[in-house]
């Protein structure tokens, strides 16, 4: 795997792994070499997991996160996570309920700022710049880092105005013609134009679930983000709408980096190039999606994806 140009080294596989036995004693075992088929290492559930298995860095990342911790009051929700998001890739984040994947996603556009008692520490760089720098505008950040949510949430406005809202706010169009062009292009790229081009003045909330979600995607890409975050974007949709959006994600990755949180492992396997497995707030393993789903290196990852616990 590629090393990033930053000084932070990728996590080497530990030489010895402490595994908790059921009687509470620790069993020290030699850890597997990366790439060794069938050699899994891991700690017991609930114990400290140790270093992340796999390469957290990428060459020329869009996002670069180092030692990110999130506390909600006294609850330690994210524990020292380091992870890069690469350009032109889809990074899937999977893990059982409460593992922190959505919390981590929300760090990337500072949505956790809106949660009382939430405290984020560590370094998060977007295109090399610290997103927590007080001199930076968080509204601008949220244009550069768009988000699509589980439940489609179009504004109670016309389809046109839904897409035009962001560009108007950020002054991205100089004229009405520019705006028309931007709305049209965004709807086309979201795969929705043909279905709505004759009813742009109708309310966005009148569309079907799948169409609403594509409208939300069009709205997100209209402000020309660098990254699109998706939090279970298809959970509320039927299989056909899901398949269309997964296809769309595949096209969009050519222009935007995409980080997607999903409960569906099959979806993570279908849409992503890299997959990160979270467990109880820690990043257990990250790697190429094909390899994670055929030959994961950490026992916890293997157990989760094969349905042996969750």
């Amino acid at each position, binding site marked *: 795997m590629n090393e990033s140009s930053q000084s932070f080294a990728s996590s080497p596989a530990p030489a010895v792994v402490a595994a908790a036995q059921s009687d509470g004693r620790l069993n020290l075992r030699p850890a597997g070499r990366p790439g060794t*088929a*069938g*050699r*899994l290492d891991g700690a017991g559930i609930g114990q400290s997991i140790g270093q992340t298995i796999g390469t957290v860095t990428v060459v020329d990342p869009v996002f670069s996160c180092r030692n990110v911790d999130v506390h909600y009051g006294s609850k330690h929700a994210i524990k020292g996570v380091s992870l890069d998001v690469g350009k032109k890739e889809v990074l899937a984040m999977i893990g059982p309920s409460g593992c922190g994947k959505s919390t981590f996603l929300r760090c990337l556009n500072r949505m956790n700022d809106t949660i009382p008692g939430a405290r984020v520490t560590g370094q998060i760089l977007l295109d090399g710049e610290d997103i927590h720098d007080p001199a930076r505008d968080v509204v601008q950040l949220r244009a550069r880092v768009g988000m699509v949510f589980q439940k489609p949430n179009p504004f109670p406005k016309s389809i046109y105005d839904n897409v035009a809202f962001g560009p108007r706010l950020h002054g991205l169009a100089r004229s009405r013609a520019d705006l028309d062009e931007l709305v049209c292009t965004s709807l086309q790229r979201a795969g929705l134009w043909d279905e709505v081009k004759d009813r742009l003045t109708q309310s966005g909330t009148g569309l079907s679930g799948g169409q609403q979600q594509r409208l939300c995607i069009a709205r997100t890409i209209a402000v020309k983000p660098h990254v699109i975050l998706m939090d279970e974007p298809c959970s509320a949709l039927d299989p056909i709408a899901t398949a269309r959006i997964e296809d769309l994600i595949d096209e969009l990755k050519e222009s935007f980096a995409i980080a997607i949180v999903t409960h569906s*492992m*099959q979806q993570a*396997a279908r849409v992503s190039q890299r997959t990160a497995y979270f467990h109880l707030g820690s990043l257990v393993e990250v790697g190429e999606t094909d390899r994670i*789903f*055929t*030959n*994961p290196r950490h*026992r916890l990852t*293997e157990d989760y*994806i*094969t*349905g*042996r*616990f*969750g």
Partner: protein
Amino acid sequence: MLEGHISKSFDGELAGMHIRVLEMGGLALDQVRAAARAYAEWDVRNAQLVIDREGALIACGTRIYDDQLTLIARRNPVASDLRAILALAKVAAELDRAGAESCKIARTVLHQSGRPGRGTSTDARHLANLATSLLRLSLEALDNLDGELAEQVIDRDQDLDEEYAAGLRRLMTRALEDPAKLEVTVEAAFALKALERIGDHARNAAQQIVGIADQAIIRR
């Protein structure tokens, strides 16, 4: 091993596939033994038995192929589960081939085109014992998902290959001494080859078992 899923029905389906492959293995072993006995004793009755039972072995294989399909379609297996399902299906394919080789030997007896001489018969009996033993050990390894035992099968197949080569050389020498017995010689060579191939199929099955067992060791 193959179990431990939250879904116990998934555990059950995998266990079912495992058991069916073992059952097929038992049938294949019976076929090999019967064919070997038929050849050694030049016994048409045993030979016919092998031919008659081939259908049951093939039906077993078809059932296991269906297991593979439905498990993949219904369960979306990944990682160790996916590898185990594919490996079990490959083991079944090897058992099917071993059964087919047994039928070749049986047909040689049914043709009655020349009983092998004492030398060839001895060699054949020796090879048959080795092949049968390899297949039996392979099945034992499959039963317990025992990677070490499977590795032994892989090693010992080399012995069988060497014994086959030696047996073939002896056969050729005898053929040169008595060219009138060409047809018998050719048939005997095919029979020895079939026995060698049975050993190969046992080895191939063992290789698949090593793969499954690897995961089982880690989980244990």
